[in-house]
């Protein structure tokens, strides 16, 4: 419900600014720096608990873990969640895996939860085999029976106003369930930790 509200809000605002956008964007030459700026904005807003309307609440979702149990994001409320959209077929995503493993080893005790939403990577057995091979020590989620991971991907794209087209895409969700940061493309352990530490 919350998500839908945010969605509608964004859509309305977007329609309002539709005409002015193209012009301004051509000036700003939007790229990563803009994204960083946006993220900084988000971070500040996240800390400011009075301004609820500008907070970007992470949409809840239900996905299956590799044993077939249903897992929801709400179950992880109270933990800092690193939500990683990835696939076994995606080279840049794989680069991040060892760093995630290390982060998990070091900061699980501090309340860190890493969740990999595994896209179009085959049946859970295949993903499990992959996870075992790589020694993945964090939660991997996949489709329950249809293509729920796609739905979740679309949901997070809509929620943040920016479609997730490429992976890896990773979000930091704080203990209150607020999206604090979005990364497109792979990052190193150090960068993740640097951003995570203020929420841990």
């Amino acid at each position, binding site marked *: 419900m919350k998500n839908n509200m945010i969605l509608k809000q964004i859509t309305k605002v977007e329609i309002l600014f539709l005409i002015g956008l193209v012009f301004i*964007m051509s000036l700003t030459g939007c790229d990563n720096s803009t994204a960083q700026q*946006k993220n900084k904005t988000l971070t*500040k807003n996240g800390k400011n608990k009075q301004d609820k309307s500008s907070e970007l609440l992470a949409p809840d979702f239900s996905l299956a873990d590799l044993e077939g149990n249903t897992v929801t994001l709400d179950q992880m409320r109270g933990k800092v969640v690193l939500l990683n959209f990835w696939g076994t077929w995606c080279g*840049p995503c794989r680069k991040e895996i060892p760093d995630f493993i290390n982060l998990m080893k070091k900061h699980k005790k501090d309340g860190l939860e890493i969740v990999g939403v595994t896209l179009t990577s085959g049946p859970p057995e295949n993903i499990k085999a992959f996870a075992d091979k790589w020694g993945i020590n964090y939660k991997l989620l996949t489709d329950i029976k249809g293509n729920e991971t796609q739905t979740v991907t679309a949901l997070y794209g809509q929620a943040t*106003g920016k479609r997730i087209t*490429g992976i890896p895409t990773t979000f930091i969700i704080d203990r209150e369930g607020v999206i604090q940061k979005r990364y497109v493309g792979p990052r190193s352990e150090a960068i993740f930790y640097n951003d995570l530490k203020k929420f841990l």
Partner: protein
Amino acid sequence: MRFIFVLSTFFNVILSQSDPVSFSSNIGSVARAGEVVNIEILASMEDQWHIYSVHKITEGPFPTEISISGDVIGSFGPIIEPEPKYVFDPGFDSETYYHEGDTEFSALFRLKRDLEPGKYPINIEVYYMVCNERLCYPPKVKTDIVYVEVEEGASRLERTSFASLNNQSDNNNSHTDNSLLGILILAFGGAIISWIMPCVYPMIPIIISFFGKMSEEKNVSRFTIASFYGLGIAGTFVAIGLGVSILSWGVTDIAAKSRYANIGNFIATDPFLNLGLGILFIFFALWMFGIINVNIAGKLVNKTDQAGQSSKSAYLGAFLLGVAFSITSFSCTVPVVGTLLVVAATGTAGGMLTSLYGMIVYGLVFAAPFVALSFFPKALDKIPNSGSWMETLKISFGFIEIAAAVKFLWVPDLEWSIGLLPRNVVLIIFIIIGTALIGYLAGLFSIGSSSNVKPFRLGRGRIVGILFTLFFLYPLTMSVIHPPTYHYDGMPRLMDEFIEALVPPPPTEDEIARKEGWFVDQYDEALEEAYRTKKPLFIDFTGVYCANCRVMERRVFPQNEVKEQLDKMVLARLYVDKKDSLSEVYSKMQFERYNQATQPYYVILDPFDESTLADTGGYIPKGFSQFLEKGANKFSKRDYNEK
């Protein structure tokens, strides 16, 4: 702040809608029904973005998949891609093969053979994932439609094979060992096998009789006449080889070449020739029984004597006997000779010479024991009581000549669909002949001049003859009792093969085969099925007249380990010797692709590009399952089966 956020958000929405890769497709020129058509699919990628190879697949990224569909597609050809680039991808910890920039793919397909002229839609579907250094877009599908224009006319030869349009696929799978040494070994070994083929038996009494008469003549050199006889046998093969070489000289039309190479099959199954041979053998039989007494050999010799010349005609007679011997044995020698004819049909000087040498070796080795036999009458003379002995032998051979006549006569009967000599009738005739022969040998009745010889005594020779006949009566009777059933293996294999060489093929086998899932004379359909189900395609090039084919079907295919392998494949049985256009297509296919004109010939094919995974030929009692396994394993290793 909020404003900037929304701005950047919207910008990114727009950005994400532009895909870094776009596709466009284009179809080749106007085509005709049955021809292979090429669809060009151009992938244009933005700088630094890449899609992955179709065929070179490594663990990790999804390969690009291109599929086409349409009602007019008869069978699918290969998807051709340019040589992919490769790089060590640390994310995958392995090499990955990819395409970047503008990349042109080709999708080949064959049009159905029964199409009206017009424009037909072909749907194209490309499934791909695109990545750069930092990001991957999840796999997605793009579709397109192109229209193929079909014009009036028969398919053009140079456009009917995937290989002819697929210049990128290396065509180095020439399987026949056409080296001179290989050919000579084949010719030598083949000749020795031909000695024991049933087709040569009927001629043996004629040889003995002819040379028996000759041995009485003093002015005929035994050695010279035997040489002429040998020359007649060997010369026939050499002449046929040369004939095919000359016919194929400078001919580029593969269909014509394949026809020449299949001349062996033609000779073995030509109704007129077989009718002639059948009548000849009836004449031989009557001669053996002493009912007619046209002593060719004697006449020839007498004539020459009168002329006072050296026995030229006797030599000519010996020579012609050799020719007749070669031709009558042709239905058994075709498997070996066929290979030599394929070489001859290359239409080059090298091919001509190689086939010539091969034919000489084959002819000489094949002739050797029968030339030796021509000395036999002399040795026979020294056996005591040879007159009565010879007489009995002659009468016995007379029975065999009748059987031989029936063997040749059912060919025109079958070809012209007369229906007088169906399989069971032929079998029963053989049984009657065999029973009569036993009766004769046991002294129950006598024939012709045998009455004026010595009183009947059941000697060693007669007992051997009876046992020998019983030995063949057994499988004949079994074949009648157990009507021709596919996969019938209750008979020793040698007998089975023997019978199949002598009697009309059981007509119902294809029906049973179809029920077992075989595609009979339906290559394109089988190929399509294999392509769809991602199974290797097993092709059984076979012939209506092919004895070894029947034996393989009955004795080898049902073996558990063979069946197990066959179950994993799509099965096609293609006849090459039916007198119809499809057989022409298939014999051409066998010749063109595999350089083979003998059956059975087995090929395991990759349905994705029609390339050969394994092939073998002939009767393979042992190791056939290994052959199948080899093909299946090769198939499973092919890249495109990952998915």
